């Protein structure tokens, strides 16, 4: 029996005849404070956002920009995006008026965005990303290189990027409350050498790029009933509102070119640490115009690893890794990047070949980059209705990753992503605070 059938007839006529709640949907546009930005000079983008009495559906929002490479010397040289347009974002922060400090700050944003995106992408997602975000042509596996830009004024591309992070991507897709204080999306641009690869062996200067038409688009909903809105206004000024999502903190370490066991300090203290993911990139490839600096992450020469958090091992035994033994390592990565409420992320974008590919798969002419990582999933449950289901490490204490190398790896940079639940509380006085 349906819900309407359980109502008496007189009530059913009334409920089906009730007026719809009057509401208006608007695609709202918030412009950055400057008309253009250069990666080498004014590389900090500020986008103030406030929609007054409208609700901001940030989970459907996206960053829009036009990007052009400024290299001028050689018409034959192209600068290719790594992954997609998200490659230009080195850091993303959220600043709320009236709140002290940033409520969210993500370093190495492009590394996180692109790697997380790989684990959530199948060929249909890759088709979408080519159309909207400047990614390469779709295939079953992901392609490392995105749109190729010719020399300055030769070509440009417009990108639409759905920003990640907890503030702009709350669980359950709830809109941000109407009547909030203004908040600002702050984006720091990465260098051209990190965000792009150039096609020529001798890289073509100058090494910078320009962004223009930088905007944040977001659907906003307005309830057009004055009585409801007055009741709502009275309640938001007397009780807190909360939303929660998954955020990330990036911890950077170095890996020496040495055989045997190496231990890196992580020290992540959170109320709900959902997972850890260590991405190893060859140090010489960073800030290198002819190397993939962002998505070429490898597990070459790693024979086993485990995390040690507050004296406990995670997982309890070492995860062994070899060319023929990648199952546990791949499963942990798949679990760490699973969408909220899912046990695993099933994707086509990270194949076994890519997962085990060696570090030299970061060259400019390669689309099949290395995509291996050392992860551990720390969530206790994967039920969509549950939040804060990760490991409570808020008591502090040391945490490390222990890796064993069969022979000396390249001198590398290890970026460990600490994925955690971040809760935002909008207090009755309008101040927004983050708890994590």
């Amino acid at each position: 029996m349906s819900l309407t059938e359980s109502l008496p007839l007189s009530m059913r006529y009334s409920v089906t005849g009730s007026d719809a709640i009057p509401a208006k949907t608007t695609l709202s546009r918030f412009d950055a404070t400057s008309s253009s930005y250069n990666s080498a000079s004014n590389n900090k983008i500020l986008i103030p956002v406030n929609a007054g009495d409208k609700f901001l559906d940030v989970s459907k929002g996206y960053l829009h920009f036009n990007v052009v490479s400024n290299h001028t010397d050689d018409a034959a040289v192209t600068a290719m995006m790594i992954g997609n347009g998200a490659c230009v974002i080195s850091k993303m922060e959220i600043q709320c008026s009236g709140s002290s400090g940033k409520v969210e700050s993500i370093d190495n944003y492009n590394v996180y965005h692109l790697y997380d995106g790989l684990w959530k992408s199948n060929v249909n997602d890759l088709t979408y990303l080519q159309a909207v975000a400047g990614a390469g042509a779709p295939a079953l596996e992901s392609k490392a290189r995105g749109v190729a830009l010719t020399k300055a004024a030769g070509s440009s591309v417009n990108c639409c990027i759905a920003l990640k992070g907890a503030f702009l991507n709350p669980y359950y897709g709830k809109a941000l409350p109407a009547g909030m204080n203004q908040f600002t999306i702050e984006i720091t641009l990465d260098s051209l050498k990190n965000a792009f690869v150039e096609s020529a062996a001798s890289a073509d200067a100058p090494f910078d790029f320009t962004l223009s038409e930088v905007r944040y688009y977001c659907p906003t909903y307005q309830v057009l009933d004055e009585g409801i809105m007055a009741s709502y206004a009275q309640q938001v000024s007397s009780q807190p509102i909360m939303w929660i999502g998954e955020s990330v903190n990036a911890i950077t370490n170095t890996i020496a070119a040495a055989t045997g066991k190496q231990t890196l300090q992580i020290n992540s203290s959170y109320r709900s640490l959902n997972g850890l993911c260590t991405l190893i990139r060859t140090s010489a490839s960073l800030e290198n115009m002819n190397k993939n600096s962002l998505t070429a992450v490898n597990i070459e020469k790693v024979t086993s690893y485990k995390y040690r958090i507050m004296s406990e091992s995670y997982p309890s035994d070492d995860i062994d890794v070899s060319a023929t033994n990648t199952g546990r390592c791949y499963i942990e990565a798949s679990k760490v990047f699973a969408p909220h409420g899912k046990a695993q992320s099933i994707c086509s974008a990270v194949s076994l070949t890519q997962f085990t590919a060696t570090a030299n798969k970061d060259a400019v002419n390669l689309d099949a980059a290395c995509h291996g990582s050392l992860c551990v999933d720390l969530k206790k449950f994967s039920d969509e209705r549950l939040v804060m289901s990760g490991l409570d490490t808020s008591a502090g204490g040391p945490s490390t990753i222990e890796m064993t190398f069969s022979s000396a790896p390249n001198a590398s940079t290890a970026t460990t992503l600490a994925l955690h639940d971040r809760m935002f509380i909008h207090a009755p006085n309008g101040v927004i605070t983050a708890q994590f």
Partner: protein
Amino acid sequence: MEGANDEVENYIIDTNKDYRDEFLKQYPEDKILDERVDDSYIELKHKKALFAYCKSMIDSKYNVYPEPMYTLLIKKLYYDTIKNMDKDQYIKEQEELANMNFIEQEMQIVKDNESLEIYLNKNNNEK
């Protein structure tokens, strides 16, 4: 809420403006939703069923709204439904059902559903 946008709006944010204060002044307390509706004549089981229906409707169509708007919308739908009800017809309907045995009651419910569908289809066609 998944439909097309009504319009596109370009916001010019004034960083010196207190948007929250402006919002609170725009919706003063004297305009708060009037919730005084007489639902005392409705049986508890029907009130519970109506609440479940309203919650289900808001969950499926308006689930993007955060608290406390989510709760306010459920209340609005609940009270609007009761405001629109014909009290005498409801009481008469309950009295008639009370005089029927089980099978007659069930048959009446099936018949009522059919009439409701005809009513809804007719209304939709006219629109």
